[in-house]
């Protein structure tokens, strides 16, 4: 121990190390390797990507389980047109570059004929572009703008609502029932901005009063410093255009400052994981949007059947991001059955266009013109201290899918949202 002077880490080493650690800490995780198989003629291969490490790993795990359930159900019935479905999945680490590598692996090495998954609008756009170039059908599980404008292509299908649809649904309810004066906290990236555009447009239509917006960097953990402005503006509705840990921290800190008693909080998209993480502070003053909540089992027989099977198998309900994966996988296989082929991708795509089905909610369809699943959007309200286990919220409204989606002509031109000027 007499050589302490020699083992000193110099400041330079410290900084070098800090850089290396910074880079690696921001994108940790070990690639999720599933068993490798060569292409066989007697199987249909479906490959998916999910964020199994990083901030959305709980949601990623739901996507995996839901896809697994769908595949197992079909295989138990004898597969599709006499072939077994072989499914492989990878960890995309919630990282666009990693996701793109995984997509290539799935198509080139695993020889998957169809790919799906992802849990980020930005990543889904990248994978969609890859899928279009390589003519591989891609089923996105997440909210995505990929069916809008020039990003829309024959091979991409979106199974979660469009971001603006989530905003239109929640804002309509908010302006009708909660108040017209609103302020928003928006995560500063494409998805958050899409939601904000939806809110601003709806506000213009319904005579809302937009008091202001603050952008918070993705991954922000302290929101107190944003609240000074919000307290001064005194809105009736505080909109959260964020997700995950960001939303958890924002809600908890709004409660800390007593804001939840002075205004209603509306999260354009929320999650059961968020309600659990916020705990009792997610009370009756807080509402959130979601495409799926297990409480739908009391409304639809199809929901009941789906949720009960899922609960029995996995012991817990699933988030909307998993449900969209279950529907996507099922719709793909239903389209194969309808087209009576597992190899002719063009025919399968044609069969998916306009396909009608009832799987997890009420009757739904995939719109033929832009490949968007048209589905309802739910508004749920927290239960605060009364929340128990997975009984976390009550459904207060279900807004029909057709009322929150623009026409195909508008979507192709990204209207009317392309004309919205976002605040600085």
């Amino acid at each position, binding site marked *: *121990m*007499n*050589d*302490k*002077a*020699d*083992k*000193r*880490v*110099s*400041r*330079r*080493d*410290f*900084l070098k*190390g*800090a850089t290396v*650690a*910074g880079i*690696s*800490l*921001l994108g*940790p995780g070990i690639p999720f390797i599933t068993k490798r198989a060569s292409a066989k003629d007697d199987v249909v291969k479906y490959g998916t990507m999910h964020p199994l490490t*990083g*901030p959305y*790993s*709980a949601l990623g*795990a739901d996507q995996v389980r839901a896809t697994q359930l769908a595949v197992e159900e079909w295989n138990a019935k004898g597969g599709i047109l006499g072939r077994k479905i072989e499914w492989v999945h990878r960890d995309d680490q919630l990282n666009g570059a990693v996701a793109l590598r995984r997509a290539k692996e799935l198509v080139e090495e695993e020889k998957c004929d169809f790919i799906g998954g992802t849990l980020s609008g930005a990543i889904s756009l990248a994978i969609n572009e890859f899928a279009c170039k390589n003519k591989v059908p891609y089923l996105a599980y997440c909210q995505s703008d990929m069916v809008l404008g020039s990003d829309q292509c024959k091979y991409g299908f979106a199974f979660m609502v469009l971001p603006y649809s989530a905003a239109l649904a929640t804002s309509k309810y908010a302006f009708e029932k909660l108040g017209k004066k609103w302020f928003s906290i928006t995560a*500063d990236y494409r998805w958050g901005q899409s939601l904000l555009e939806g809110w601003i447009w709806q506000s213009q239509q319904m005579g809302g009063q937009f008091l202001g917006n*603050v*952008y*918070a*960097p993705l*991954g*922000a*953990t*302290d929101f*107190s*410093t*944003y*609240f*000074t*402005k919000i*307290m*001064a503006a005194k809105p009736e509705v505080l909109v959260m255009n964020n997700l995950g*840990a960001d939303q*958890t*921290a924002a809600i*908890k*800190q709004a409660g*800390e*400052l*007593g804001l939840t008693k002075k205004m209603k909080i509306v999260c354009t998209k929320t999650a059961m*994981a968020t309600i*659990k*993480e*916020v*705990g*009792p*502070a997610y009370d009756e003053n807080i509402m959130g949007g979601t495409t799926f909540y297990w409480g739908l089992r009391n409304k639809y027989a199809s929901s009941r059947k789906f949720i009960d099977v899922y609960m029995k198998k996995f012991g817990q309900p699933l988030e909307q991001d998993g449900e969209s994966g279950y529907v996507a996988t099922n719709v793909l296989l239903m389209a194969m059955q309808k087209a009576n082929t597992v190899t002719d991708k063009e025919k399968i795509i044609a069969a998916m266009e306009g396909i009608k089905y009832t799987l997890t909610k009420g009757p739904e369809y995939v719109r033929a013109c832009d490949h968007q699943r048209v589905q309802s959007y739910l508004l749920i309200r927290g239960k605060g201290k009364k929340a128990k286990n997975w009984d976390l919220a009550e459904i207060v409204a279900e807004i029909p899918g057709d009322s929150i989606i623009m026409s195909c002509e508008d979507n192709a031109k990204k209207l009317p949202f392309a004309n919205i000027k976002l605040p600085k």
Partner: protein
Amino acid sequence: MLSDVSWSVILMQLFFGLALGSIFVLLASGLSIIYGLLDVVNFAHGAFAMLGAYVVFLAVSLSGSFAIGIVSAIVIVAIIGMMVEFFLLKPLYGKDPLLPLLLTFGLSVAIPDLIKIAFGLIGEPVPYPEALSGATTIGPLILSNYRLFIIFFTLAILVSLWLFLKKSDLGMIIRAATRDSLMVQVLGTNTSRIWTTGFAIGIGLAALAGAISVPMMSATPDMGVEMTMVAFVVTVVGGLGSLGGAIVGGLLIGIIVAFTSLIAGEYSSVAMYFCMAVVLLIRPRGLFGEIGRE
């Protein structure tokens, strides 16, 4: 944007910045003590803070008392820290300086994964303590009681730490060993015990930072990543191995983040790194860093 900013808004922002900075100070002073004494660059610092948050969650669930939560977080995580130092770090002293660095980096990945296995991927909520909820109104200022607590509690911890290091025998030995451990050893002190103690103090401070943060954000397995980054930025700004630097650096970064949020919220995270870059360019050893340790 600045036209509608009044004095009360500026004071509020200053208050939020100080509260935020206090947590940064706790994180960075722990990192600084460990580096100063052991020359170990602790990449698992945030992971230990996260452990502190989970101990609070467990203790509050069992006892219902936030105070018990904080005390158990410091004690339990400091003991874990001592064991890490004794069993894992000690064998690496005197070898390649990169080895402890790699070890702590490995821990920063392994500890969150163990927590994921034990508690699942979804985080655990800890409510604000009843006695500290609500806000105190002073004129136009609405000050959250919990943030007031954070500021004063951190102050109390820092004063005790300062008294301990300056006035107690053990503190004196720790300071001496930070300067020249060989000399301290020659004078007949068992430095290896000093190092274990120093590591435990540093880890205890990290656990405390995690513990007081948890009501504001809930305990999640990955919450430590951001905390490690902050601790490093503050340490680089304040100066390596300097407690005073950690304090000034932490408060400075907290206030910078607060005012950036007010003017251009989307840059509040970047502001911290920008500040670090400026300090590195102008004064590479940090605000309070010793000469010769650049």
